[in-house]
């Protein structure tokens, strides 16, 4: 943290104090910054360092780990699956949750029980996994209902089960966020538009949606980050080596860790962080440009 040039410290009986009235926000940031530095930034710096060294001996090896990661078929498969997963589930989640939020605005009764929509987030992963196994296994409830003998947890079907798991788990939370955002849309503007003869669709696309852009960035980013948390369910259902359709980035990191491929894991983590950071920046920039 670089302090402003004019700032100075003075030792007083009650501790440090910065004499710069426009820098007081730093003091509010400091606890959080310290925590983030201690538990995120510094360890990540260590990961970056390790990505240029061998696993346990710590010898400098240049870009070898990155080359090894890029050449690794398992990593490439995991990246492909993860991108596919994000590409499919993120639009589904954002659109479906927004539609439900809009519906809830129109049907006030639904909004009264919005706390219930958060229930999936409160359910322990082990319970969720058990239920999903009961439903989607070869001898499960769904197979029985359809009168077939499909193992929905195998092959490409497992991918769609995973999408359903993610959407189900995050839908309520996202709906609540959309609801909060919808409340920020000025009612008088919508009323004025309606008086001017604009229909519901037109009002939505020309008034509501532009007002939701700021929230969309936050919701989109949170949902994007949440896609990486679905590993827990996948791992509990299929272990370290699930079908190749649902083999995600976290699997490869997890397995590298188990096999002590810490060098590859560090390089992979740096690459993943870079991509995540780039996506976040891109989304932010996109929003700014449109503003």
């Amino acid at each position, binding site marked *: 943290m670089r302090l402003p040039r004019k700032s100075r410290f003075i030792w007083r*009986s009650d501790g440090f104090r910065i004499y710069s009235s426009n820098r007081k926000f730093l003091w509010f940031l400091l606890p959080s910054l310290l925590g983030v530095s201690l538990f995120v930034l510094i360890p990540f710096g260590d990961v970056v360092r390790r990505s240029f060294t*061998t*696993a*346990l*001996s710590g010898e400098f090896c240049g870009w070898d780990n990155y080359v090894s990661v890029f050449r*690794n*078929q*398992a990593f490439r*498969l995991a990246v492909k699956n993860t991108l596919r997963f994000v590409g499919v589930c993120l639009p589904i989640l954002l659109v479906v949750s927004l539609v439900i939020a809009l519906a809830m605005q129109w049907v006030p009764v639904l909004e009264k029980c919005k706390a219930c929509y958060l229930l999936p987030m409160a359910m322990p992963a082990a319970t969720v996994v058990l239920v999903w196994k009961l439903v989607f296994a070869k001898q499960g409830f769904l197979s029985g209902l359809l009168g077939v003998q499909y193992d929905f947890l195998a092959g490409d079907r497992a991918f769609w089960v995973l999408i359903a798991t993610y959407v189900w788990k995050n839908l309520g939370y996202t709906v609540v966020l959309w609801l909060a955002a919808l409340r920020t849309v000025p009612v008088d503007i919508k009323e004025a538009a309606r008086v001017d003869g604009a229909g519901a669709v037109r009002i939505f696309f020309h008034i509501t949606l532009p007002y939701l852009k700021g929230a969309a960035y936050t919701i989109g980013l949170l949902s994007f980050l949440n896609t990486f948390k679905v590993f827990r369910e996948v791992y509990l259902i299929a*272990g*370290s*080596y699930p079908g*190749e359709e649902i*083999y995600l980035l976290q*699997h*490869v990191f*997890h*397995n*590298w*860790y*188990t*096999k*002590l*491929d*810490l060098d590859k894991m560090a390089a992979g983590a740096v690459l993943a962080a870079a991509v995540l950071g780039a996506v976040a920046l891109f989304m932010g920039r996109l929003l700014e440009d449109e503003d």
Partner: protein
Amino acid sequence: MQNRTQKKIRRLLAGMLGAVLLLTGCTQSQQKQADVSQAVNESGAQGGTTVSTGPVAKGRYVEQEIPWAENHGGNMPVALLPKADGLYLLDAYYTDAEVKLARADFSNSSEMPQIYNIDSATLPKVLQDRMKAEDYITDMVMAENGARMYTVFTFSKTEEQRQYFHDKYFMDAEGNEVPWDGGGSVSREDMVVYTYGYDGCFYVYNHKRDEEGGALYRVNAADGETKYLMDLDFYAWNINVFGGKLFAGNDEGLHIYDLTTLQKLEEDTGLTELVKERLGVSNGNYATGFLLYPGEDESVYVATDKGLYRHILYGNVSELLIDGTLCSLGDISKLFTDMYVEENENGMPVFYFLYDNLKLMRFSYDPEMPSVPEKTIHLYSLNENSDVRLAITAYQSLHPEVYVLYEVGMSGDDGVTREDALNSLATRIASGEGPDIFLMDNLPLRSYANKGVLMDLSGLYGDLKSEQQYFDNIVSALYTGEKLYTIPMLFHVPMLAGDAKILSGITDVESMVKAIEDYRMPKSGLRAGLIRPEATLQCMSYTHSGSWLKQDGSLDREALTEFLTICKKLYEADRADISQEDLDYRMDITEYTTDIFNSHYFVSRQMGSMVMNRRIFGDAFAIGDLGGEIKYEFNYFYAVLKQIEGTDYMLLPGRGNTCMPEAMLAVNAATTVPEEACAFVKYMLSDYLEDTELLSGIPISRAVLLDMEKNPFMEENDPWGAYSYHSLGTPDGEIFQTEVAWQQENVYAQYNKMLDSIDSVNCCEYELLNAVLTGGAPALTGEKTIEETVDEIAKKVQIYLAE
């Protein structure tokens, strides 16, 4: 003024903080010491002392084996009895009724005490007569005055059935024998359990055959007067009487009775907690998994495999006096026979334990011995390994200055999966806190070796080789270039047994398959006794799994296809001549473990049992594996083999002559105690194994194997006679008996020649082996084609191999 005061307060606080940091210790080594102390404390501090990280606390019980001055010959120690001139050992002998008294002489404290045999001629004449008559004396207790109670086992064969009798006797101090029948309420068929109450009386628990519960009697050691005390509504496996209380144990719990009021007392939960895991451990009559001995002030000494505790009756806390993990008490291969406690000149109790292998151990308090060993070796294995556990116990007895902490990743009690355990281990290794020694069974050997986790043991092995012979052909197969990362303590060999003429024509796996295919059973039956596809895959994986991966680490589909093709041919040939009815019968009576990774790397298909199937069912060939101690495994296998004329054995043909290593030892390259770790590894590979009878594999030390081949009965009258008898009954009531005898040198020479021909080691990646063994069966049964099965297996492992 105020500023000064605040400054003072700050300085004072800073000083106090510094002092706290200094006293608690911040360095890594101190933290490690604290961890060790904590670990030992969790398993129990020695002598009840508190361990600190400051100056080393001293004082611990150390053990000493009291040696026999001469060959004792017996094998059934039944009791310890203190007398004025020493501690007497009572030794019965099940097979020829030899009853011996021996005495541990401690009169000269400056010399090592020894145990001396007492001339059998000094025994009461009645016992001498019983010895001559070769009666089977199965249990015996003795009082201070020399009075005894014992059981003589006899059986008679009537026309309808065999009848077994347990005749009970009381012998007074003068040696007069009187049949004991509990005043007429105890029959010849009933089983009894004796104990001496150290109050001048024997206590006898009578368990009536085919009835729940039994009755307790008190027998006066002076005149044999018997008094019925009470009925017990459970079958007591062992009883102890002291302090006016009866402690009767069975697998359900430890029941306590007041012998004055004859009322059952409430359970002592603390005492039950101590012994609960050993309640059901017994050899049937005289040896048990735990012992109780009266202490002072309502206390009781409790000995289990966890150690020796002092427990105040109905108290909440038990004090661990001797940690079982640091001495022979933790040796689960031995059972307790009796225990005796005396006080030394300083008033400290000295403990004696008699084991069922006739070893007498003495534990005395050494005030100079550090209460916690100063150095700790962490040994890690994924699954529990009893051979390693025994080695640790033996090592601890010799090296009380080192603490070997054995950690099992998957204990089976806590739901930890293999992946959980490997993750946890990886964390420890990555943080520099990894174990000092690994047991590489089921651990990723290749990955750990490539990452530099493992120490190169080639130098250590060189030292070992200079001292004694090893199966160098096997160890050599484990080298990676010039480096050796693991040395197995034991190994198994896959074998094929069958008609000697047919075997002589088998040179490789193809000729073996053809020989089995061409064989025609004279009647309905299995040709190779494999029965199930899983067993076929398992047996053939012994010799083929090493070929499934190419040099670059990718899957060799051709080798896998060839393997499944061979297995399919074998599986089909095996059942070509058996009727469905007979096949169902074989399936019903044979239990196969399908959960192949439950406890061991492979399911045991002991050759002795496989060849016995050949004898019972007429299987043409037997395929399985051989490992273990000569006396119990090879001699039994060979005895069964020779019951069918013209039968021979050979290594199971495959891709090379293979063996399966077990208890693969490796040392952490980053260990902080390299010398101690290497010393322990050397010990585990040394001749200590010679005295171990419960080995689960063939020792890698050839010297140990050669020593095992020496006939311990050479000095007996009939050195080549049977020393063990095995009976196997079929559901049809047919009995197959096997007399196991020591073999001639040429038999062992042939065995050694076979072991010398081994040139490769079966070390397949766990995930790959698992995928093949669990996914290969459909190819054999015809549910899927071999190509489809190979595709599925390849799909399963491709991600693993790609990582």
